[in-house]
């Protein structure tokens, strides 16, 4: 395979890993959710890249076109986007409750408070 063929995917992997790093390395609970968002959005790019055909058009049937990009990844990702936003909404409401209960959204401070009781 030529280099250009998968460089595109590799770039997406880099994005994914930045998101993943934010998710597991950052101590701030809100930022973790942001990391999750970036991680998931990058996975979406990966999927959509799979469906692309060079020189094709969006999969809306039209008599002027004959080559369409693959619609199935689009459908899957539409579902995944919705699932993602549902997860972040729930996660953020947990963060709000944690803030009310602990007065902090930093992981290390919360862990310390749990240890001291």
């Amino acid at each position, binding site marked *: 395979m030529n280099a250009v063929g998968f460089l595109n995917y590799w770039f997406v992997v880099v994005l994914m890993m930045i998101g*993943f790093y934010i*998710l*597991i390395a950052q101590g701030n*609970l809100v930022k*973790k959710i942001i990391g*999750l968002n970036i*991680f*998931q959005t990058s*996975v979406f790019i*990966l*999927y959509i890249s*799979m469906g692309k055909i060079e020189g094709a058009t969006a999969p809306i049937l039209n008599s002027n076109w004959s080559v369409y990009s693959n619609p*199935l*990844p689009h459908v*899957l990702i539409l*579902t*995944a986007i919705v*699932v993602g936003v*549902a*997860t972040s909404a*729930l*996660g953020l409401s*947990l*963060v709000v*409750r*944690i803030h009310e*209960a*602990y007065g902090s959204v930093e992981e290390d401070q*919360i862990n310390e408070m*749990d240890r001291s009781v």
Partner: protein
Amino acid sequence: MMSHLPVLQVIVPLLAAPLCALVRHGRTAWAIAVASSWVSLWMAWKIFQLVQADGAISYNLGGWPAPIGIEYKIDALSAFVLIIVTLVGAVVTPYALKSVGREVGTSREALFYAAFLLCLSGLLGIVVTGDMFNVFVFLEISSLSAYALIALGRDRRALTASYQYLIMGSVGATFIVIGIGMLYVMTGSLNMADLAILLPELPSNRTIPVAFAFLSVGVCLKLALFPLHMWLPNAYAYAPSAVTAFIASTATKVAIYMLLRFFFTVFGVHFSFSEMQLGIILLPLSLIAIFSMSLVAIFQTNVKRMLAYSSLAQIGYIILGISFFSNTGLTAGILHLFNHAIIKGSLFMALGCVMYRLNSVELENMRGLGKKMPLTMGAFMVGGFSLIGVPFTAGFVSKWYLIQGAIEKGLWPVALLILMTSLMAVVYIWRVVESVYFSEFDESQNDDCTEAPLGLLLPTWALALLCLYFGINATLTTSGASLAAANLLRIGS
């Protein structure tokens, strides 16, 4: 009507959930939840019988034939897991009335049952589906509702536990999505049966093993296999009792089901165990899980937490059975899915009774409880003995198969280790026995402590009696499990 059973199995609780949210009246919502969970159990039983008699059932959603639309496929294994999930659901919902009323508060009861039913239908959806992406969607339904349910615990640590579970769970789910994407890009299909045909035809490549790795890690995060178990102990320990009882005995089981489904049906036995050497990876991991988690359990002072660690060890036993990659080993694993579900269900429900009276499940507060709550502690002991694997209890049967599987493979040290870790279970259960039966009750602390109400006791004892019944007469469970195991191995070869 009967031909629609596979989809109704999922749809009934799924429809009941918005109804619960609509009525907004705790009691009515509870009644809806009980009715739908019992209907689910009945349907699961019907499906189980059908599958035992005529083999796998397939159902095309939307009327579209298999790879184009989404297919529901129920084989012996799915039918067996359906029984586990619905059985626990049907026992926990009646139990929830008192327990949830006390621990969660009446104002949020209706929504609680909505979330509970969503969790139930999500788990059922994972089990019946034959489509990879559909697995992900229903996985998220069950996980999101589980996060919300766990966060309802009274202790503020329930919130952090739930948050941690959310993060780990979402990472797991995203890994699964990556894995599915890689399978999809190589084959163009999302249907499991279709994938099973297409994957072996592919020329040797580097993508499928990576997809395999991502799916395995993703699912292992969900099922809390050592070393990906960090989220579980706190989540179990601080969730409301009814939630712990339900989630502990179903969610990880369904995750193990997913693992089996991916390894055996999608990738095939040959790929999973010969090319990827899965047995060699899983065997040490499960042994470490069994040993270290049993050890940690011994030193817990919170009984709920102790049982959570013991759950991690039990998951190890199940994975151990799978890693033998033999008919007996697999039967043992699948059998233990069921037995562990009813054992842990009864134990956590007994603890819920204690929680109801004492507001605590700390070992020191439970001193002398054997005299105050003899029936509750009796149920706990039945579950506890079963967990250890005392003869004539359910736990004994699955351990028996497990040891047989180990000996068949010539793994004598493993068989010995199973016996040894059972002794460790004796130690931590004994700590409870000692505290409950051989110490004096502290009257000053809580003087109106009596037996738990009947609404809690009956469901607890129902599961405890099942633990005994399936220890004495195990034909039903073993035949179901061995049929499932045989099916899995045949599909692959």
